[in-house]
């Protein structure tokens, strides 16, 4: 039930955010009345100065991936008779609801050639998938709103509401009337236009793309699960491999399996390589042997060897769920030195829970939790801490072949947040973390996927 409550509060939060966004997008009434609906504009008349109809609007061209925060309209594609022609934005005098008025009397007939960053708004963006970065969800554009400014027309918002779809289904005169009930500010959108990514790489990361990079891995995982195949690979390309890998770790296993299968093997291998070893092992386990081999072959040798070793442990055992990332210390080191080495491992901060102390032969002596390390004096030696911790008895360790339920029992009994996994010779081979145990033991969380009904 608590999961549901969480979902409800999340959706409430999203709604609030949406209301806020709407206010931002349609801040003043003046803006609202001057908004031009793209759906209403398509098929509308293009008139010359005298008000005579010259042709009809087929599509609107905008430069999505430029330096501007709101994409400027760079031209129109219009139909004159049976011919399609491109009309540059400087020939447009005014864009009104449902119609365009030209500045000049005569029109050059020329074909549309896509320039870098340009997209056809109706063909490539309208009715296609978008990521709403603020609301953290994938949606489909029901309408786009243009705002005519003094010297240019810009794309300001995306309408994602169902009533807008009904409006577009209705008679022609409804079309031009903007109904911005649920408008998302363009700044909060990451669009996927198939043609649109050909622009120079440095301008691709617009504000919303930057916002994508601020998303939590779990949110990003949700978005990845929701996107179509091409869109998903595009989004992955935009992300740094480390960030993408973090998101992949949060994905549903079945979705992750699909994603890795779809991606180019080099790219997939890179992503798996960036994932934490335990998560990477889980992901690889879900693939067919030949697919798994294909990825492992493309990884650096040492990483591949480690993953192969992890793969020999069975799923559902401590060995199958553990991470092999261990920070080890010797007795003669000082606490400050150990802290220093921990600081170097900042990128793995979620995987490190304690420091293993080993003797000269590599046998486990003690497992020092981060708390104990934090309260110890800088100058104290590791041996001192070990001696102090000795009063609480020997460290609780588990074998790699015990079941997860048993591991959980031991974890609870030890009142720790992670357990050390040791082999037969008492050498540490990994660590099993509380969150991995929880993940394995919690029932499927509040997710209902269509696939369930298909299988």
């Amino acid at each position, binding site marked *: 039930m608590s999961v549901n409550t969480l979902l409800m509060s999340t959706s409430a939060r999203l709604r609030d955010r949406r209301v806020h966004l709407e206010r931002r997008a349609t801040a003043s009434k003046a803006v609202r009345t001057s908004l031009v609906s793209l759906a209403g504009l398509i098929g509308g008349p293009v008139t010359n100065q005298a008000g005579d109809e010259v042709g009809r609007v087929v599509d609107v061209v905008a430069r999505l991936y430029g330096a501007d925060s709101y994409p400027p309209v760079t031209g129109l594609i219009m139909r004159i008779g049976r011919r399609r022609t491109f009309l540059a934005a400087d020939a447009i005098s005014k864009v009104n609801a449902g119609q365009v008025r030209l500045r000049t009397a005569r029109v050059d007939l020329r074909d549309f050639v896509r320039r870098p960053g340009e997209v056809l708004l109706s063909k490539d963006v309208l009715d296609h998938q978008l990521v709403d970065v603020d609301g953290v969800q994938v949606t489909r554009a029901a309408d786009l709103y243009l705002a005519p400014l003094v010297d240019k027309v810009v794309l300001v918002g995306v309408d994602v509401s169902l009533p807008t779809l009904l409006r577009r289904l209705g008679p022609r005169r409804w079309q031009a009337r903007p109904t911005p009930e649920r408008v998302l500010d363009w700044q909060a959108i990451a669009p996927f236009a198939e043609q649109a990514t050909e622009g120079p790489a440095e301008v691709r990361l617009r504000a919303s793309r930057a916002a994508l990079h601020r998303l939590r891995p779990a949110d990003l995982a949700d978005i990845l699960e929701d996107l179509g*195949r091409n869109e998903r690979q595009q989004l992955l390309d935009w992300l740094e491999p480390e960030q993408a890998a973090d998101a992949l770790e949060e994905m549903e296993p*079945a979705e992750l399996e699909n*994603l890795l299968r779809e991606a180019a093997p080099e790219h997939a291998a890179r992503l798996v390589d960036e994932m934490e070893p335990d998560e990477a092992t889980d992901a690889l*386990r879900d693939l067919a042997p030949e697919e798994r081999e294909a990825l492992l072959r493309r990884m650096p040798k040492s990483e591949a060897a480690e993953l192969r070793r992890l793969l020999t442990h069975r799923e559902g055992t401590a060995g199958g769920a553990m991470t092999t990332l261990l920070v080890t210390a010797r007795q003669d080191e000082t606490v400050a030195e150990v802290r220093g080495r921990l600081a170097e491992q900042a990128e793995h901060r979620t995987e490190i829970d304690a420091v293993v102390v080993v003797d000269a032969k590599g046998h486990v002596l003690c497992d020092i939790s981060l708390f104990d390390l934090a309260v110890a004096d800088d100058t104290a030696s590791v041996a001192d801490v070990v001696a102090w911790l000795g009063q609480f008895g020997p460290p609780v360790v588990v074998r790699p072949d015990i079941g997860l339920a048993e591991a959980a029992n031991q974890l609870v009994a030890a009142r720790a947040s992670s357990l050390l996994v040791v082999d037969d010779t008492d050498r540490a081979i990994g660590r099993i973390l509380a969150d*991995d145990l929880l993940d*394995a033991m919690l029932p499927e969380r509040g997710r*209902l996927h*269509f696939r369930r*009904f298909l299988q």
Partner: protein
Amino acid sequence: MTRDPDTTTEPTAPAAAPVRRTGWRRITMVAAIAGPGLVAANAGNDAAGIATYASAGSQFVYGTLFFMVLVTIALVMVQEMAVRLGAHTGKGLGALIREQFSLRLTGLAVFCLLLANTGLVVSEFAGIGAAFELLGIPKWAVIPPAAILLWALVLFGSYHWAERIFLIMSLAFFAYPIAMILGHPDWGAVGHHLIVPHMEPHKDFILLAVALIGTTVSPYMQFYAAAGVVDRGAKPADYPLIRTDAILGAVFACVISLTIIIATASAIGGTGPLDSAAQAAEALKPVAGQNAELLFALGLIGASALAGAVVPLSASYAVGEAAGVERSVSRSFRDAPLFLGLFTAQIVLGATVAMTPVDVIQLLIGTQVLQGLISPIVLVYLLVLTNRRSVLGDAANGPRYRIAATAVVVGVAAMSTILLVQTVLGWFSLA
């Protein structure tokens, strides 16, 4: 990592490395041959399908067999096109239609799908009602609780277990092939009618032919097939396997349909239109003897309940996909008002119409005629999409395939048009 309960096998399996996958893979390997076929056969073998095939057998004996062969070819081509779209674009049909057609045409497709599927839901509840009437329980006492139960099972997420029970119950219909052999049909006549074209120009035959098209090539099957392929994350590289799946599945489904027609024909063939579920159960007598009605009822309940949940779900999903809100379902079913509304509306409407005191068999066949009339419209979308190189690239229909597929669609449309014209003329008593 969370595990999908579907794919979890016992961790006691002896394999060293990927425990879950070996088990699941093995099932998938088997399923690659029989899985989709089983699903497709069960989808065809819902209440309305059984009623239609049985009616074909009782009314025209072996006369519709050749037509069923044609329908099989049509089904194979249609399913192949649907899975090709799914595999090559990674998108469901609903999303593709929204992206490739104008919103109004999308609206039309969605409307047709909803109409056809609501018809199907009606037939599923009618099937549940008919099955319980065979067991001596009146349908008004069964349909409302069944509707509420099904709705709640899906909504509160415990549908999995129910689904398995329904699936096992519906396996009762695999008694038909045995019944066909034990029923000693006239094999010579069967062979003759399978090969030699046979059409009857009168209205009853055309009506039944359209119903046969409707129940076999039902519009929702194409959406379902494409969604299934996308959900399995199939790539273009997997396409040859998927195509084999689809073709085997379609052929398998049609073979089962043929056995139902033949079994019914040899049991009660020539006794005129089917008028009760009890009569249809006669065909299973060679297998089950006195328990034929029980076996038939069991199968009917399972198949109807199975389809009764999947059909409105897949329609709601396709509509959600076209509207761009499909993914809200994966977050929380209860957070998706459109999805929930459509699903509820279809079940309520289906159950209500199924309660009307009309002849069950006629109602069942009527819903399939409706499917048959709508199916050519949906097929046109499919054909246009698979013809487009901008959608499928090199996998788009080649010139020869295009002609064949167009012929199929035109053929299906022609049957529907003839039926429509005949019906309209009938209203003015001209035919």
